[in-house]
């Protein structure tokens, strides 16, 4: 018992992304990610969107040891450095998709690997998306060619509380642990509205209405609150008292929810309608947790100030609508309106939720930006770049190490053939932690095991 206590203290000192009372040595599913081999590179005369809202023209950038080490004019060229002429090209941070189902809904889309929704109970906070991810999903490589270096995989939206999401580096490997973004917090997927009430209502079980949805979340948080107080009571005891008493039994579902209440796990809430988002904010306040982002949020523009006041991001499509009643009130300026709320204090994210959209998040941001300008907002391209880089990095809890081009941050970088807001621009090179992951010109690109010899035994799937 004593040993566990000490380790427990340790886990507080470390970043505790898993439930507190698993000893850190035994902590399961730890990231074993390590960067691919990297080299020292000098990009010369690039145009740069840094992801934090700035634009630098004709500027050099140096990466070394997997990090960004210098950004500036006329940086010195050493003998051991590889020089890339980026004249008339653009550099951005690696694109981050905050809403992906790659791996849990892989391609081909077949029943045997559709593992994104544990739709057997409306609350499945015990399940983790990473345990469903098929690491040979050929979609990872396609997203990489669109400049995506990091993606956040969520369970689906069938359940009120769908389980834990995970953030991964877009470096396809044979185990998910070796793709997991080091020290990235878990997320908790929650879902409002039509999906849970349809899935369970059709089975004549709760929830079958939106009020049933709300009751369902609150019942779960009541249980979680009680569990956490038992846990904290136990944790606050002296070592002797601990040996005398009983440790609350582990409960996978409540461990996840308690992790949210402690602030270790970030809430990502699928929610379309403005009125439902407001209800969810009340529930979060009632139980003392924070909502990191509302996802899809087609009506976010109706409550953009409320979201800004509560520091909640809205992760949005540029233009999807109409597939459901709760997605009927789409405006293309949604992203811009959220972004501009309270004099630019809003947090807007352009997400994909799509294996095609994830390959073109730059185009999605471009549509959203144009719609914002048409709506009368003065938004720069440099600012719009935040919607697919730093803002999703913040929402994934990894902004301290990626999501913008700052000296010291990971060298997650895309070299584009031109301005990334144009449809004609392609990612030419993608670097993850300073390692070249994709090179359009030389055809250096990953192929999953699935891609190998599946049409022609002598070729990869899309090799000509």
């Amino acid at each position, binding site marked *: 018992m004593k040993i566990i206590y000490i380790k427990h203290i340790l886990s507080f000192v470390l970043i505790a992304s898993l439930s507190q009372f698993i000893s850190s040595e035994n902590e399961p599913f730890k990231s074993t990610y390590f960067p691919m081999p990297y080299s020292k590179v000098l990009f010369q005369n690039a145009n740069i969107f840094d992801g934090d809202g700035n634009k630098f023209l004709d500027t050099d950038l140096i990466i070394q040891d997997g990090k960004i080490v210098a950004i500036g004019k006329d940086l010195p060229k050493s003998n051991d450095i590889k020089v890339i002429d980026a004249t008339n090209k653009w550099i951005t941070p690696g694109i981050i998709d905050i809403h992906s189902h790659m791996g849990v809904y892989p391609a*081909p889309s077949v029943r045997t690997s559709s593992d994104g929704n544990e739709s057997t109970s409306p609350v499945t906070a015990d399940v983790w998306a990473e345990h469903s991810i098929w690491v040979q999903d050929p979609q990872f490589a396609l997203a990489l060619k669109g400049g995506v270096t990091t993606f956040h995989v969520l369970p689906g939206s069938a359940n009120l509380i769908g389980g834990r999401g995970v953030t991964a580096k877009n470096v396809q490997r044979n185990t998910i642990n070796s793709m997991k973004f080091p020290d990235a917090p878990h997320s908790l997927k929650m879902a409002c509205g039509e999906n849970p009430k349809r899935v369970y209502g059709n089975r004549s079980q709760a929830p079958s209405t939106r009020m049933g949805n709300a009751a369902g979340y609150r019942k779960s948080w009541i249980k979680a609150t009680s569990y956490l107080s038992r846990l904290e009571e136990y944790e606050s005891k002296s070592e002797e008292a601990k040996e005398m008493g009983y440790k609350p039994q582990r409960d996978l579902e409540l461990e996840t929810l308690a992790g949210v209440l402690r602030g270790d796990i970030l809430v990502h809430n699928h929610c379309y309608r403005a009125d439902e988002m407001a209800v969810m904010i009340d529930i979060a306040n009632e139980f003392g947790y924070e909502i990191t982002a509302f996802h899809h949020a087609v009506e976010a523009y109706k409550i953009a100030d409320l979201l800004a006041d509560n520091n909640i991001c809205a992760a949005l499509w540029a233009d999807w*609508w109409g597939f459901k009643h709760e997605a009927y009130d789409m405006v293309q300026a949604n992203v811009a309106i959220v972004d501009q709320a309270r004099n630019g204090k809003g947090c807007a994210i352009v997400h994909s939720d799509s294996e095609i959209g994830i390959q073109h998040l730059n185009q999605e941001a471009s549509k959203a930006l144009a719609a914002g300008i048409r709506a009368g907002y003065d938004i720069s391209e440099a600012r719009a770049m935040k919607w697919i880089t730093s803002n999703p990095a913040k929402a994934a809890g990894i902004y301290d190490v990626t999501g913008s081009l700052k000296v010291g941050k990971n060298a997650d970088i895309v070299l584009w053939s031109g301005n990334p807001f144009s449809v004609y621009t392609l990612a030419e090179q993608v670097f993850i932690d300073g390692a070249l992951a994709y090179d359009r010109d030389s055809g250096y690109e990953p192929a999953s095991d699935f891609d190998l010899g599946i049409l022609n035994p002598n070729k990869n*799937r899309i090799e000509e």
Partner: protein
Amino acid sequence: MLNFRFKKYFATFLFIFANSIGAEEVLITNANIYDGKSDDPFISNIYIKNGKIKNISNNLFDVENVIDASGMIVTPGFIATDTEIGIVEIGALSVTRDDRPSMYNIGFSVFDAFNPNSTLIPWNRANGITSAITLPKYSSSPIGGLGSFFDLDSNLNISGTKDMVMVGRVGGSSSGSRAETFALIEDLLDLAFSIDPRVVKSNAEIIKFMSEMPLVSHLDLQIRDIHALYKLANTDLPLIIESNRASDILKLIDLKNKYNLNLVIMGAQEATLVIEQLKDSDIPLIVNPINNIPNSFDELASNINASARLEDAGITLMFNAPRDHNYHLIRQGAGVAVANGMSYSGAIKALSSNVSKTFKLGSKGLIEEGASADLMIWNADPLEPSSMPIKVFINGIDTDLTTRSSRLRDRYTKNLDKPNIYR
């Protein structure tokens, strides 16, 4: 026997002519024109009168309404080939869906369900689509269901062409074998080509014909279905078959040749594997150029450069987008196709004249003298998804570009001093 009354209605190709024609005269000057047929754009004036393009030249006409399009691109109105416009309002709400039959199969027509007040119409129009082909969901028969062509002018007096295409599908499915699907298609085509013209003249004859055909009772075919099959066999009706796998595409080429079908293949995700055979077959394709996902075992060859390679081989291409409200995204798809090697003018043709030619829509999709004045003036490059048309003419009418969406936007961004429900 409800369908007796409708016999004549279905027996012939029914053309519905444009009901609303712009009476006004418009002169668009100095436009940079992609006319849907030329490889290069040219700068000219366009004079519109009585719904038609009357003159394309540097001539000036004495009209009140002159639009200076200097520095702007003008294209034909784009035509969406594969839509549910007018027959589905909200995807997940079956009460707003009119896209699938419960009783008819092959003869099911979506035409009478078309709702000119659907919010999808102003939305897609404001984003650059002036007309669309609306297709039914696939029926239980591997071929069957009739689609119609509509102008997206929001006029309650519908203008378009009724039942101008039949649809079908072949490929992997969770039940049955594609071998059976091909056999069934052949059986249906054999049946279609065996219908004597005298048979379709009277219902009594049709009933007699049906009683002699075992397939009829097996598939529960109705009189209406027999008319549709007759039409397929005798009127050069375009038949769109959705199919993706290379081997299936080859089999479809054989079917086209055997029956002399006016075949169009949609999806065609593995077309690049059979590019030579497709080239010789003259079969036009409807592809989604942005879809490079190996989404099934029929689509393993999906590749972002497919459109460019198919164009190179001289295959006629048209574009589609997911059947989910934003059919204007065929523009973004076209842009992606160009980014990956397709020619610009080829992409414009795929959005306009290729559709018109394939489906015999007359002068739709073309900017030429005498053509119906369906054209758009763009604020920037129409293949950039961030661009928008600033003028959309349909049959010469300068259409309204307000949408429910733009109203919602304005409500939440303008006149914020008033309570929102009074804005």
